[in-house]
């Protein structure tokens, strides 16, 4: 039994079959990559995992509980954090404030009307936020306006925000899309470091094969809404079906 079990999931948009009969099992404490050509249904699958979309059929179980029909904020509270393709952070707030919000959400739940306590008195939250920033070597930027950070730093901050909630499953949606090579390598190093230091399961959707093969322990190849194969990176590399899906039959 994996920590995340996707069974027979299908999703249609009108006449378009985005996902048909997807089965996927992500084992605890592994890095699981989901790859596939454009339009394979990777993002649709991810959206089904976090509550943004509800599949037409099938089930999605996280740690023995169904996530279907739950709101994204409920799924997050169950222990799934999501990193977006373009970093989603609170661009109007400072880096430190960005960092405090997930920590407050973890501590206080989905809603808390603590309108008359001061932020300054939340020593535990500030301490944890500062510590997290230090760990991600962003402490010197804590009073920066987060909207003015570089793309790589925004990504770093977003990952830090997700990790501060100590999620059991971290979902990454093309974390290096549109990044310069140096930023991509930094992100790979960061994810490697996270994997080594924490008990965390990472599911990653990626286009960039360099990223996939430097991180993943298991790979699922998705094409036209169905999983083709699931295997270790070594076996995937030379797999004929994968070559076919990516390069067309003539290859």
């Amino acid at each position, binding site marked *: 039994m994996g920590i995340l079990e996707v069974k027979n999931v299908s999703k249609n948009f009108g006449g378009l079959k985005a996902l048909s009969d997807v089965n996927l099992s992500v084992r605890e404490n592994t890095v699981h990559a989901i790859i596939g050509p454009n339009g394979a249904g990777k993002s649709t699958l991810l959206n089904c995992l976090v509550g943004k979309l509800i599949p037409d059929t099938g089930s999605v179980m996280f740690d023995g509980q169904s996530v279907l029909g739950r*709101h*994204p904020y409920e799924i*997050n509270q169950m222990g799934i954090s999501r990193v977006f393709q373009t970093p989603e952070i609170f*661009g109007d707030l400072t880096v430190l404030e960005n960092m405090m*919000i997930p920590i407050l959400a973890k501590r206080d739940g*989905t809603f808390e009307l603590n309108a*008359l306590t001061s932020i300054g008195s939340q020593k535990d939250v500030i301490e944890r936020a500062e510590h997290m920033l230090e760990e991600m070597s962003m402490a010197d930027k804590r009073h920066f*306006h987060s909207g003015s950070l570089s793309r790589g730093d925004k990504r770093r901050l977003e990952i830090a925000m997700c990790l501060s909630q100590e999620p059991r499953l971290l979902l990454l949606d093309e974390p290096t899309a549109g990044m310069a090579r140096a930023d991509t390598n930094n992100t790979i190093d960061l994810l490697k470091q996270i994997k080594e230091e924490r008990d965390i399961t990472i599911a990653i959707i990626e286009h960039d094969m360099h990223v996939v093969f430097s991180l993943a322990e298991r790979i699922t190849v998705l094409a036209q809404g169905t999983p083709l194969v699931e295997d270790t990176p070594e076996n995937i590399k030379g797999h004929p079906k994968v070559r076919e899906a990516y390069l067309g039959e003539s290859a």
Partner: protein
Amino acid sequence: MFGLDKKDTTLLIVVTALVVLAPFILNPFPADSALAQFNAGYPDLMQRFVIFGIFAIGFNLLFGLTGYLSFGHAAFLGVGSYAAVWMFKLLSYNVVPAIVLAVIVAGLFSVLIGYVSLRRSGIYFSILTLAFAQMSYNLAYSVLTPITNGETGLQVYSNDPQILKGDGPDVTHLFGLEMGSAYTLDIGPWSFVFSAGYYFCAIFMLVAFYLAIRIFRSPFGLMLRAVKSNQQRMAYTGLNTRPYTLAAFVISGMYAGLAGGLMAAMDPLAGAERMQWTASGEVVLMTILGGAGTLIGPVLGAGFIKYFENIFSKINDSVLHQWFSFMPDGMEDFMVFIVHPFIGKGWHLTLGILFMLVVIFLPGGLVEGGQRIAAWLRGRGKKPAGGSGDPEHHPKPAPHVAE
């Protein structure tokens, strides 16, 4: 002090001093001098300053923090006024039950409107709130006449029950202290008026301001700013945005109800026109003019607009002729002709131009103007105003309305 940091405490003390000393500050000119018409230190206007200050502070808690632009906030003010006048009619002229009920009723009403309107954001939210407010206005004018007394407006009649009145006074009072009572202090040619009603409202404004600071600096306030910044990230951070925005909406509705209740407490009347969309638009102008999302901005904006409304509108042609009387005849008439559209009934034109100038050149409102002057005085324009000390990273001013 009071759970505030040093900077906020200073701000609160300064505002308190200004409010307490307002009868002096607003009356700088001797009573019979030509400039006396610029004096704003009479009770009626000072009350309006603080009451609309409360209204704008509350509005800013919603708009400034979450970015949700409500275009129907006057409905809560109107509902507060009606509730207060009903208390006068049923119980007595004592203002305490009136204000308590005004806040409660406005709060309940805003739960209802907020619950529906907050299903949408951006322009759709604005339109929904506007629609609700206009509905309330029209209902108050026609169908709900038994409750609102329609066009005449709700007022207290001598045959109303007033069951707790006994032999209490026939005007609004606080356990016997009449709201209309005032003490006039004459110093030389100056005359300063200290009104019970003004100080009563002022205390409420200071408490409202203090609470607003606390909310701004609380984790709840941080979450509201997060709503404005990125709702998607909030949802994926395990936070439910709906109760946060609803709570902000209700709190700001209660502020509006308090303002409405105080209005009725100063003058026991309530009319439907208080709910009209122009009244809702006015508080939007006040907040943006002063500086949305800042603490003191809405209060400044409210004071600014009320000053214009009451002082500029009173300047008429004969006053202008007096001002320009030193000029030769033709010149004098010409100047009066030029200035005429901007005064009297034309004060809206002056206000409109000022508003445009502020929005274009000072997107942060009057507060930004103040900050720029302060920065210029401190560094003579050399140092940037921001505290980050990082010239490369200047945040763009946040947009006024959340997308």
